[in-house]
């Protein structure tokens, strides 16, 4: 098959891919190609029509499409090559990217590859919610897509499972479009999404939030007729006898995002079970040399502003790889310790100062996060409040690292 040589192929034209492309171009790498499966660039931002994007990057509260446009314009102004309506089918260890479009099969051989495919949603099937499998059960992103992109209304009386940001946003969206949201049920004892979303999306509309609850059965064989909701104990197990039945015609699930790494696996990229994303070094290079990852495909973000920054940092890593064949070989491991769900990069080299990105396991006030190597505390940061819903980023200077022993990041 005809292979076309490229310096860098970027898989996915969402916020991570777009920012990486612009940064790479400005660093002097012009032989780029953004491969996007949709007709338009922008990725998931195309359907996130609410505002709150760009607060730190642009000091403005933009909608998703407007944030995306900032980067799309930059890509257009630089004439960065883009191919749309093209779906990547395969990425190999030796940098061959195979894709399909209406024009045929495309095969590129790239010096470096940027993985920016984003993530998918956890489904009802994965959760195994008991009951029948009727129409009317939607993951929040799918409901959002129907309403905002396909002009299709999904239901009238809605129960939402999961208080992550997408679920909260959809509670408001559905209410604005005339549906009745009966309640948001969250299995944890605290909301999964940002507090300001609880305020603007639930409290504003009098939508009740039930913490420590989950849906334990779906009723209705044809279209959903209702759900059974139960209270859960601190082990997240339903408490017998605490069942309540809520008649509804729609169940929206906002129960987790999973980085979409099927293509990464094909390329031999090692994944971290904690993030479901690739194991990377400080410049976001994966275990397959020359393949880099940023954005939701690497770990699920809550602020797109951080995605753009991450992709821009990645660009420097790609530069170093292309120009100096740089691959992290010193392998100082970074370990998520007590109170930390995950931290990346998972290993650090001698060249790139890492920006440690992490999430805490539980909400807390006056939280101290420590980065320690052996007995030596390298960095310690205090947070008035630390929430699992808000990614924490701590820069680490390379000269702080004493030796090749692993670093541990933990909550004291």
């Amino acid at each position: 098959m005809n292979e076309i040589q490229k310096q860098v192929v970027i898989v996915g034209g969402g916020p991570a891919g777009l920012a990486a492309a612009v940064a790479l171009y400005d660093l002097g790498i012009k032989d780029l190609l953004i491969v996007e499966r949709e007709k338009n660039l922008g990725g998931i931002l195309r359907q996130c029509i609410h505002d709150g994007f760009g607060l730190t990057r642009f000091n403005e509260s933009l909608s998703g499409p407007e944030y995306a446009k900032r980067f799309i314009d930059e890509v257009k102004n630089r004439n960065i090559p883009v191919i749309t309506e093209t779906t990547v089918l395969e990425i190999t260890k030796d940098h061959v990217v195979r894709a399909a479009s209406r024009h045929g099969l495309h095969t590129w051989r790239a010096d470096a590859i940027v993985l920016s495919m984003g993530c998918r949603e956890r489904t009802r099937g994965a959760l195994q919610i008991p009951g029948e499998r009727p129409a009317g059960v939607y993951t929040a992103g799918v409901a959002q897509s129907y309403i905002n992109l396909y002009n299709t209304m999904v239901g009238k009386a809605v129960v939402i499972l999961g208080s992550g940001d997408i679920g909260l946003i959809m509670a408001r969206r559905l209410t604005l479009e005339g549906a009745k949201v009966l309640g948001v049920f969250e299995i944890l004892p605290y909301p999964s999404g940002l507090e300001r979303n609880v305020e603007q999306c639930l409290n504003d509309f009098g939508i009740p939030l039930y913490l420590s609850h989950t849906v334990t059965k779906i009723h209705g064989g044809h279209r959903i007729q209702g759900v059974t909701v139960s209270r859960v104990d601190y082990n997240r197990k339903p408490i017998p006898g605490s069942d309540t039945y809520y008649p509804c015609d729609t169940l929206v699930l906002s129960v987790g995002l999973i980085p979409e790494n099927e293509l990464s696996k094909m390329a031999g990229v090692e994944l971290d079970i904690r993030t479901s994303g690739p194991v990377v070094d400080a410049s976001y290079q994966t275990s397959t040399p020359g393949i880099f990852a940023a954005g939701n495909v690497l770990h699920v973000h809550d602020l797109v502003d951080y995605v753009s920054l991450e992709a821009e940092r990645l660009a420097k890593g790609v530069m170093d790889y292309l120009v100096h064949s740089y691959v992290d070989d010193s392998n100082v491991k970074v370990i998520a310790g007590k109170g930390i769900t995950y931290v990346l990069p998972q290993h650090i080299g001698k060249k790139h100062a890492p920006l440690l990105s992490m999430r805490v396991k539980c909400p807390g006030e006056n939280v101290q996060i420590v980065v320690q190597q052996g007995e030596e505390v390298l960095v310690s940061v205090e947070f008035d409040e630390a929430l699992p819903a808000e990614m924490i980023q701590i820069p680490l200077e390379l000269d702080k690292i004493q030796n090749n022993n692993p670093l541990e990041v933990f909550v004291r």
Partner: protein
Amino acid sequence: MERYDVLVIGGGVVGSAIARELSRYQLKIGVLEKNPDVCLEMSGRNSAVLHGGFAYEVGTNKAALCVEGCLEFDDVASQLDFPFKRTGKVLVGNTKEEMESLKDTLRIGEINGAVGLEIIDEKRLKELVPTVEGTFALFSPMSGILDPFQYTIGLAENAVKNGVRYHLKREVIGIQRLDEGLYQLETSKETFLTKWVINAAGLGAVKISEMLGISGYKMGATRGHYIVLDKTVGPLLPMPVYPVPSTLYMGIHVTPTVEGNVTVGPDADRVTSLEDYGVEQRNMDYLVEDASTLWPNIHRKDFIRNYAGIQPTWLDREGPLKDFIIEAREDVPNTVNLIGIESPGLTAALPVARRAVKLLVDREKPEINPNFDPARKRMKPFAEATPEEQAALIKENADYGEIICRCESVTKAEVLNAIHNPLGVETMIGMKYRTRSMMGRCQGGYCQMRIAQLLQEEKGLEVTQVLYAREESELFTGRVR
């Protein structure tokens, strides 16, 4: 009022096999199917296994027709162009009692005509299925796995190609015998006239039998539940693995699907409803716990979905039915009544159909249909093509280059082809069964919007008319603007 020579009640694998067999003759044939598609009941809710024929009592129709169906299946799958793999199957045991039981099973199987059965030791077992836990097994090399949706749909589409008319969403609610020797079938919509009635209604067979005036049959139901696992574990299970059947408790099987997933199940619960396909938490817990002793590769992170099937338990005046009943009663002329068609119904569908049709043909003596064509060709799935083939497919039809379902690599060409299917099925699940879209790990998260859009555009459906699977399963309530 539509007038037929034969009406088959039930468009499942047996009803469609019968309709197709009938179309070898010059007869006006119709199929009345209750649901909006042909594989929504037993035919689409099973283990998808081709059985070797050793599990049935000697001398029964079940045994004979199962073996007949099993042996000819390569030709059937090739003729109707649906996925089938003759993987073999093992029944795994550990105790002395289980060994004795397997020896009996082997003996019975051999009498029934099952081919190639042998008792194998642990070494051989581990060669066949390295991931299984067990000391010895009965190996049935002729067993296999198939796509039950494509099989049923293939039969139906070939029947249509040969002149059979399908009437979907037509539940038979009353049957009257008219003076002219015709039957009048009243459905939820129109009324039909026919000379012959064939009852292949599966879960509805007893009800239809009563309507025909053949009474004495009773039906109970058991519901079996399955968990579907991600394709990543598929390579760990090269063939179905069953525990040795016990009379004391329900041993749970693990079965690879022909597409590379794994199903865990079924168990069996007595139920009263023939419509409730719910899966309870305790069922899922039991499936995992029990099957894990046999095959310890069942992990929550690999769960994609679950489903349930309802199988009837049949009784006649003497007690539980031991065998398939395929009868043409003289006191209820021009009927063929099929009762008790349950597992191995999938394996035995064609042999059952031939028996049923023979009862009609012997009496009616119709002319042969010289135009009968037994072959049905599926559209080539993009996912099964080599890169060279894929490039050629796209060149010929640009719609092959538009990926709609990215988890299963299903293209717009295939989705459009499925939408314009010969049966006129217009449901989302109908598209799922015909293309594999929405069956992957994202469960339609990426593709369902696109498929719903195409359905509306291609079939001129209003947004509120898009059905999920069964009647009254509307997906949408209207437009936003």
